[in-house]
Structure formats: structure tokens, C-alpha cells
């Protein structure tokens, strides 16, 4: 689903969280919102989901004007930073929640719901864990359950808030590769928020660099590294990764998985 955002504004008191944002997201694209904390990236993500009331502007999902639609009507898959899995429900019940709360008219039969849940569990490589509860899962597993739960409603767009923020470094790397593969398999339009430029540059088709409620640059990772549009972008992208990530020397793929992911992305 193609998303277009026009003149999106939001302020908290006198502080502008979003400053007349214009952004077009192509169908099937994997887009990163990159910026320091307070740059408005999470506010933008939540505004797309309808979780954050906006002051002005329009949001379109394909041919639909989504600006006035409620959260429920927007049908976005949202993965929260800390996953927000329902603690008192099994993994399967979590994943199928979005199907089970539908109006009877649109609700699949019980066996069909179960089948879809199991299918999604296999997709996120957690087959056999349907009866577990969230507290019996590792961080990486929880994240994949949250993703499966978001995918269950066949969302118009998949939104992820700091998807790897709560994981340790090793798991983070693995999940990053896996998420890229999953995206390429399923083809959902995906937007994720991160403050980690390495994550944004390695994973996304295009990166939106945000600062103080405004977009500084929207471009491919290569272009952002090679031709930073503003001083802010140049400094933000180089900081931390100094020496490792420069325009002339992009990071070498480290594992077979990453090489595959890279080939998919470049190809």
C-alpha cells in the first residue's frame, strides 16, 4: 500500500513535534525513520497509525484518505518497542487476537483462526510454541510474536517502533537480517523507527533522516552516505560509526545471511 503524507503537523504546547511533514512511501518499500530522540520520528509513526492525534495535514493510504479514520479502521500492523504482548494470553491467542475481536460477519471460523495463527507462527519460525505465554519467551521470540500478531490482520502497512531497541546486540543482528528476509517474502510496506544509523542504513530501502520535527533528507542509504543533504545528516550519519561507515567504504557483509540480505537489497 502506497502512503502519502502531506503537511502533517503536530505540536505539544509550543514545541513542534512534527513540522509540516511531506513524505511519500512506495508500496512494498522498507523505510527507516532515523533521528535522535526528540526528532519526531516516533510521533510520525504513531500519527500514521492513528495513535497520535494530529493538528493538521493529510495521510493517505493508496486511494483512501486515512486522516479521519480511527486506529481500528486504519488496519495498520503496529509493533511496539516493548512488544505489548498480552501477558494473560497464550502465544496463539495473542497472534489471533486481531481476528477474534472482529465483528461476527467478518470473523473467520474458529478452526480457520487457529490455522491462520499456526501458519503465522511458522512464518516467524516459532512453530510449536502456540501454548507458551509471553513470559516464557526470550526477547527475540517475543518480538517475532508481536510481528506475527501485527501481520495477522493483513495490515495495509507495517509500522515498527524501535523494533530492535530492547534486544541485545547479537540477537539484534540476527533479527535484522531475518526481518529483511521476511519483508522481501511478504512484501508489506514497512516503516520502522530507529536511532541507530547502522540499523537504518543496513536494513532499509530508503532512510528518512529527521531532526527537530522536520525531515532533513529522504534517500537511499548509499545516497545518504555519499551525499548528505545537510550538515546535520552528515554529522548524524558519521558519528558513532566513524571510520567504519564512509561513502567510499560501505560496511562489508559479515555473514552469509547478511550477504544474502545485501544481495536482495542491492538486487
Amino acid at each position, binding site marked *: 500500500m502506497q502512503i502519502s503524507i502531506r503537511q502533517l503537523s503536530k505540536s505539544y504546547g509550543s514545541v513542534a513535534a512534527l513540522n509540516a511533514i511531506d513524505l511519500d512511501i512506495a508500496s512494498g518499500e522498507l523505510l527507516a525513520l532515523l533521528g535522535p530522540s526528540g526528532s519526531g520520528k516516533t510521533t510520525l509513526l504513531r500519527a500514521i497509525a492513528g495513535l497520535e492525534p494530529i493538528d493538521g495535514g493529510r495521510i493517505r493510504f493508496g486511494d483512501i484518505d486515512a486522516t479521519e479514520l480511527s486506529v481500528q479502521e*486504519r488496519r495498520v500492523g503496529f509493533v511496539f518497542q516493548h512488544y505489548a504482548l498480552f501477558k494473560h494470553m497464550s502465544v496463539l491467542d495473542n497472534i489471533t487476537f486481531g481476528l477474534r475481536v472482529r465483528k461476527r460477519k467478518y470473523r473467520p471460523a474458529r478452526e480457520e483462526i487457529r490455522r491462520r495463527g499456526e501458519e503465522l507462527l511458522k512464518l516467524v519460525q516459532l512453530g510449536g510454541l502456540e501454548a507458551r505465554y509471553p513470559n516464557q519467551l526470550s526477547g527475540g521470540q517475543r518480538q517475532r510474536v508481536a510481528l506475527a500478531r501485527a501481520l495477522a490482520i493483513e495490515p495495509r502497512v507495517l509500522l515498527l517502533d524501535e523494533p530492535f531497541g530492547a534486544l541485545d546486540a547479537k540477537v539484534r543482528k540476527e533479527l535484522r537480517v531475518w526481518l529483511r528476509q521476511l519483508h522481501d517474502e511478504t512484501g508489506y510496506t514497512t516503516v520502522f523507527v530507529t536511532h541507530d544509523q547502522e540499523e537504518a542504513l543496513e536494513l532499509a530501502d530508503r532512510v528518512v533522516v529527521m531532526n527537530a520535527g522536520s525531515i532533513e533528507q529522504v534517500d537511499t542509504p548509499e545516497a545518504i552516505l555519499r551525499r548528505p543533504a545537510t550538515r546535520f545528516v552528515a554529522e548524524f550519519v558519521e558519528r558513532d560509526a566513524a571510520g567504519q561507515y564512509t561513502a567510499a567504504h560501505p560496511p562489508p557483509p559479515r555473514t552469509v545471511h547478511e550477504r544474502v540480505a545485501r544481495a536482495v537489497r542491492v538486487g
Partner: protein
Amino acid sequence: MGAIALPQLTRAPSRRRAMPGFGLTLGFTLSYLSLIVLIPLAALAINAAGLGVGGIWKVLTTSQVINALKLSFGGALVAAAVNAVFGSLIAWTFVRYEFPGKRALQAMIDLPFALPTAVAGIALTALYSVPTVPSPGQGWLGVPLEALGIKVAYTRLGVIVAMTFISLPFVVRTLEPVLEQVDRQYEEAAATLGATRWQAVSRIVFPALQPALLTGTALAFARAVGEYGSIIFIAGNLPNLTQIAPLLIAIDLDQHEVGAATAIAVAMLALSFAILFGINLLQTWTRRSERRTA
């Protein structure tokens, strides 16, 4: 290296627990409980034993006593149920919304705690009674309700009203801190998955509150069963109709019928214990399913 002598282990590491002070704290807990709770209750039981089972049974099977016990426990059950519903709503409003005067309202919730129960009783009676001669400050609610055919003062309904009044804070105060812990992110997640507001509250928030709600309701129930001061004013003293069990105890004591008073007291003790024990079991059960899931 090695010039400084290290302290030597003079004792083999004993069977010490990871958390020290077990003996002391358990000893203190048991002595305190004995002194404050067990000894008075044991005295009550010994006193009643003097009557013999037959004697107790004879007291308890009089219609006046049976009706009083029914009213005490039945009324408390109704009051606790009413407060479970409305107390939850109040707690929800306090935790989730900001509005002018919230502080003052929150302080008011505690009033039934702090108020001498006789004051509450007099206030309720003045409010709900129907004065024969119109008098200022009397019957503000009693007169219009009477017009609708509802009598509160000197009826069983009045008993329930008083019980509801004094036990309200328990549900509100037990739920508030737990509700504050329920992150809104869960409701947001439910909303993005298509759940209506009602579905999010009933399927996501309510299960998280359930153990606390049970505790609060149990406390409210216990308080309502034990209430005396506020009820006797609004209930009057109509045998078989508005007499509560604690009032019968007081009457018996007044007439130097210590045996009968003790028998009723023992019955209340046994019933209260059984009910609270049942609630405890229920709680362990929900908590166990909680632990499995939390």
C-alpha cells in the same frame, strides 16, 4: 603480594538462609498474631464452648437470629458487589482522567474510612428518613424516594445503603495502584488490532485488574459484615426485618445474655472465616493462572 593476612573463615558456612532473620521475624509474627488475633478469638470460642453444641444450636436456630445473620451476610454481599462495579468505575476515572477538583474528590473517597460510623449513620438517617412533620435538613432523599414508592430508612434497603457507603473506599483504593500499573500500550496494541474500546477494556485491562478487584471486594465485604454504628441508625431495630447480627449481640449483652451473644458471635466468626477463606482460595487460583501467564 600476600603481606596482608586475609580474614579466615572461623566457622564452616552453616545452613544459613540466603535471607537472614527468618527465626526472628517468624517468632515476632506468631507472637503478635497470637496476642492481637488468636487469643481474643480463642477466648470467644472457649466462652461459647460453655454453652455446648446444643446450646449454641438453640440460639442460632431462632428465627430472629437466622434472619439477622442472613441480613448481615446477604446485605454485605450485595454491598460488596455494588461497590465492585461502581468502585471500579471511580478508580478508573481517577487514574485515567485529569479534571478540576480531582484532589478534593479523592480525599472525599476516604471519608467513609475516617468518619466515626455513628456520624455516617446519623447523616444517612437524616437524608433518607421521611419526617412526619416537615423539618429542615430531614428527608432530602427520603421524601422524593417515598413518592416513587421506595422506602430506605428503617428497611433492609437502608442497611444495604449504609453498608455500601462505608465499604466503598476499599475497592477504589485497592484498584487505583494496580490500574496505574496497566500500561496504555496494551490498549493501543488492542486498538491497532481492531479491538473496540470495550473489547480492549474487557479483554485486556480487566484480566489484569481481576486479582486486585477480588481483594478489594473481599475487604469491602468484610467491612460491611462487621459494620455496626452506621447501620443501626438507618435500620432501626425491627426484629426479623432490619436487625443485623452485631445488633443482636449488643442487645443480648445489654440483657446480660452473654451466652446467646457469644453463640451469635461464634457463628459470625465461622461464617466470615469460611467466606474469606473461600475468597483466598479463589485468589490463589487466579494468581496461579496469573503466574503461569504473567
